[in-house]
């Protein structure tokens, strides 16, 4: 062993981390989680919209938003539970209250929010129990904003650099996208004469989402590599952004003819659609590989997927839930196409 033995040949393990293997584990979340982010965001923002509209005297819009929130609030817990490895044990989340765990906070938040939102929506639909309805709606509106944005904290509590690095802007991306979805849904459900504020909310939400995303990518810098180029995450990110921009533009162009747009336009013209479309099409990112940095500082260990469309883990989990054995072999024997920390394939 000479003192110089630390130098490594190109292609030898030291030059590429440990045989090009990722340092981190692929997150275990399944397709339900991005859908839950969407339904939770839609519900939470709708509850706020409903109470705000009622306070402003716009009863039909308040009614539409409350009715939009209820089904979204109802499916959210179901999605969260079915994502678990042991769904029958979901109640274990409610045996502790742990501020250090965003998922624990979210579980409590959702448990309190969902019955209120569903109750308010049902009472609205059936036209019963006005007092209870109001109380439930106000409660849901108080918890709604938390439900919309805590999911960003949930995602950023993550060793994956691209998600952890997005911690400042992600809540605004989520808030914008939730407002776009809620505005779009209420716009479709409310009578034309009352729908104008919902259209404005949808436009503002779309703009906020796009702006926050841009800011996020700027800050991420080289960590944003998975968003660029031709990987699935980048492709879906482009689709999501394009659809959000198109939906927002259409909503803005609707202008005074909002009613006509609304009656004629298929739901895909609604600002709500882009966000959901982005989510529906969630796909897996390329198998992440790690390269250790040539020296010193911590490098992005891996940068698996794009939070761009607000549903990063859909891409990183669902379709690629590889049998460990196969992945291991292909990762080690396959051609060396590893994503470098600068985002180039080699």
């Amino acid at each position: 062993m000479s003192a110089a033995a630390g130098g490594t040949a190109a292609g030898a393990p030291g030059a590429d981390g440990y045989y090009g293997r990722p340092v981190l584990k692929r997150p275990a979340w399944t397709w339900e989680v991005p859908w839950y982010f969407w339904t939770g965001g839609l519900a939470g923002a709708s509850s706020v919209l409903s109470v705000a509209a009622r306070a402003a005297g716009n009863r039909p819009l308040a009614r539409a938003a409350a009715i939009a929130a209820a089904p979204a609030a109802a499916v959210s817990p179901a999605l969260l539970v079915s994502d678990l490895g042991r769904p029958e044990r979901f109640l274990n989340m409610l045996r502790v209250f742990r501020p250090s765990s965003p998922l624990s906070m979210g579980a409590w938040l959702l448990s309190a929010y969902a019955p209120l939102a569903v109750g308010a929506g049902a009472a609205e639909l059936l036209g019963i129990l006005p007092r209870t309805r109001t109380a439930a709606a106000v409660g849901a509106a108080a918890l709604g904003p938390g439900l919309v944005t805590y999911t960003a904290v949930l995602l950023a509590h993550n060793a994956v650099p691209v998600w952890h690095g997005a911690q400042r802007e992600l809540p605004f991306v989520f808030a914008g996208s939730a407002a776009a979805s809620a505005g779009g849904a209420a716009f479709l459900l409310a009578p034309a004469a009352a729908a104008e504020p919902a259209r404005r909310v949808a436009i503002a939400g779309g703009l906020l989402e796009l702006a926050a995303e841009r800011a996020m990518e700027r800050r991420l810098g080289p960590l944003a590599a998975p968003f660029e180029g031709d990987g699935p995450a980048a492709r879906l990110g482009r689709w999501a952004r394009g659809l959000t921009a198109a939906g927002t533009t259409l909503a803005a162009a609707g202008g005074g003819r909002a009613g006509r747009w609304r009656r004629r336009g298929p739901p895909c013209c609604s600002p709500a659609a882009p966000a959901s479309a982005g989510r529906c099409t969630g796909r897996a990112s390329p198998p992440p590989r790690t390269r250790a940095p040539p020296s010193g500082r911590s490098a992005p260990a891996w940068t698996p997927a794009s939070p761009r469309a607000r549903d990063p883990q859909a891409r990183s989990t669902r379709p690629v839930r590889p049998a460990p054995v196969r992945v291991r072999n292909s990762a080690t024997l396959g051609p060396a196409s590893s994503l470098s920390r600068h985002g180039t394939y080699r």
Partner: protein
Amino acid sequence: MTTLDPGAWFTPDGEPRRMGFFTDTSVCIGCKACEVACKEWNGVPSDVAGFTGMSFDNTVALGADTWRHVAFVEQAPVGLEWFGEDAAAGTAPAAPSAQDLRFLMSSDVCKHCTRAGCLDVCPTGAIFRTEFGSVVVQEDVCNGCGYCVSACPFGVIERREDDGRAFKCTLCYDRSKGGLEPACATACPTDSIQFGPLDELRDRAAGRVEHLVAAGQSRAQLYGADPDDGVGGFGAFFLLLDRPEVYGLPPDPVVPTRDAARMWRMAGAAAGVLVAGIAALVGLSPRGGR
């Protein structure tokens, strides 16, 4: 070292001490006895990856079914430094001989972090810290949410797909309860895996690394022995003969919960923007009324 003096586990006042591992990779011979002993004692399922071509490493990485993993790195001295030295001397580099090759072997394990991401984010309380300072998953509580998996900066803990729950090294908590050393440390024939009170191990390791550097191992370094690092120091730390990334270890691990306060502040701000924006757009003025 199979049994420890009872005095090692508790302070004179009867308080349990923080126990941990010092894995001295400079004496690891790559026998994998630790891997086998761990599987045997803990009943960990087989997960043979087949022939990987990664030197002698066919277990590949830590995971739900691999709680000790011996890494094998083959190094040849043909890096830039070598050319640099030769260029300075004005001679052409000689072809490396078998003598110049070196094997690095290292038995990796859960770090039992002082600030453990997996433990911090677990929403069920299934992951807890034992009286000996180790981090353990309670299998009867874990509901398989998978949040710990993405919170571990080392890629240690993993969900077992056919089972749904998360698994990792327990520092042989059951054996600790009975005053026995962990299975892997017991099986290690060269004392590369040393188990004991963490403060004592740190002292011992500091002396050992000094010795190795003096003996010419210029890159010998401790990994995880610093209580001020991003995870507050490891309960299971290492002496490495090269940079951590050569062994597939992150050079500067940070617990993801470190920035929690800022994340919640930003979420609060975004929630505020959402409420204020919607209120303004439906025609409510900040002073109330229309």
